[in-house]
């Protein structure tokens, strides 16, 4: 069974933010919520590298582990989703997540948080596939359409890979062999706990 994964090739990522706006465009994510963002380390210095980050759909998702209302679930594709009907916006998952994926809309004037929002791997949520209700709460469901997350599909330099973990690992390995260098697949081990040598 294919296992969905993200992998950002830091030697390709140029911090163009296509992934960020593609996500906004596809899922109509409002201002102030970023399901995906690009982080740059050593900004402006030799060794500067950028990585596009979102929910990594962890094998053993820490967000799910700390959720007091247990609103998370994992699909057969190993995509980590959650129910906004159950979510109470407590923010625990934000603290548990190593990638800073959970986001909360500001819904009142006193800093009160709304329901948690995060990357769905463009796989919608618990509502019926491709239903209006699903789109309004979770955004699009590209997996159900036979597509992949738009962030990766539109990545300017083909840095952000998404899809069947075995296939994207192979693509990445081929690159490392071809170019003779690779800075490691950032976040891979944290999210998937695999010692796969890439």
């Amino acid at each position: 069974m294919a296992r969905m994964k993200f992998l950002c090739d830091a030697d390709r990522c140029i911090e163009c933010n296509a992934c960020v706006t593609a996500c906004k465009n596809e899922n109509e994510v409002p201002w102030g919520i970023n399901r995906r963002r690009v982080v740059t380390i050593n900004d402006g210095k030799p060794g500067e590298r950028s990585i596009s980050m979102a929910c990594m759909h962890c094998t053993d998702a820490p967000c799910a582990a700390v959720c007091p209302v247990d609103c998370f679930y994992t699909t057969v594709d190993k995509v980590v989703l959650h129910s906004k009907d159950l979510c109470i916006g407590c923010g625990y998952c934000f603290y548990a997540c190593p990638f800073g994926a959970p986001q909360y809309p500001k819904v009142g004037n006193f800093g009160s948080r709304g329901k948690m929002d995060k990357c769905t791997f463009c796989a919608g949520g618990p509502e019926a596939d491709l239903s209006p209700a699903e789109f309004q709460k979770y955004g699009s469901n590209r997996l159900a359409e036979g597509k992949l997350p738009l962030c990766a599909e539109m990545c300017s330099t083909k840095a952000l890979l998404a899809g069947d973990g075995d296939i994207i690992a192979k693509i990445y390995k081929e690159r490392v062999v071809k170019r003779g260098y690779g800075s490691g697949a950032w976040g891979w081990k944290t999210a998937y706990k695999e010692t796969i040598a890439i």
Partner: protein
Amino acid sequence: MSGKKTKEALDRRGFIKVVSLGGAAAAASVAPGLVTPAEAYDPGKEETKGRYRETDHVKAFYRTNGY
């Protein structure tokens, strides 16, 4: 491109004609202050089913990511 949209599947963008009807209701559902009982979410088979398929669209993604 993908050509994989089946007739019976809801057209991805098709639903949006209906959305504006349900707009108010949907907005209410994400409004704050809705207290939810702290029960474990127990999704059924339908929610957790596999959706990924290696369509032409997906293959094009893999292909253009190679050299």
